[in-house]
């Protein structure tokens, strides 16, 4: 059975304080690993897709990396507008995604 575990559950940061979120997974045949951002009361929004170990993607203050067992989402010098829940999902051989429970990030000014 595919499993996705995200840690920590919650992260409180000062503005400018860089940190990392972890997504560890077990899946049979990884087609892709996805990161989403979810604001309160809204649906998740796509951020990145990673396909193979060693791959990295960047968008503004966010950088996602992938190994064979886990992915990290690095937040560099975060701002209050980066506050959100970040979801990780894996896509095995079929098209269904399996989601982690998410990490809620709060950035204080």
């Amino acid at each position, binding site marked *: 059975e595919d499993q996705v575990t995200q840690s920590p559950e919650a992260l409180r940061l000062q503005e400018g304080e860089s940190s990392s979120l972890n997504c560890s997974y077990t899946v049979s045949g990884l087609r892709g690993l996805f990161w989403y951002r979810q604001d309160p009361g809204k*649906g998740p929004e796509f951020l990145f*897709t990673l396909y193979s170990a060693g791959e990295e993607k960047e968008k503004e203050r966010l950088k996602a990396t992938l190994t064979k067992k886990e992915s990290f989402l690095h937040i560099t010098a975060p701002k209050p507008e980066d506050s959100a829940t970040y979801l990780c999902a894996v*896509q095995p051989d079929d098209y269904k995604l399996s989601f982690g*429970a*998410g990490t809620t990030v709060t950035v204080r000014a």
Partner: protein
Amino acid sequence: DVKVTQSSRYLVKRTGEKVFLECVQDMDHENMFWYRQDPGLGLRLIYFSYDVKMKEKGDIPEGYSVSREKKERFSLILESASTNQTSMYLCASSSPRTDRTYGYTFGSGTRLTVV
């Protein structure tokens, strides 16, 4: 620019009522999904459909049914609402042509409260 639309943002229903949650997508996607999201549990798949009139059970289908009469519309039905179905419901769609690139596109969600 709206791509996946859920008909209601907030709903309050009484125990025992039959509840319909509607979802429409305008991206000509083949696949559609219904999830519920609860704190600490993440997104759990209720039902999905990969074609018109086709449906498959997800991980937690009990107490729910679905209908897909048209490609763009996927409805979730709570046959007899119960308080443990109070949750955020998310609809999503995808296409085999693009899902490996973008994953799913989600609606804004429906916050359902059953009293």
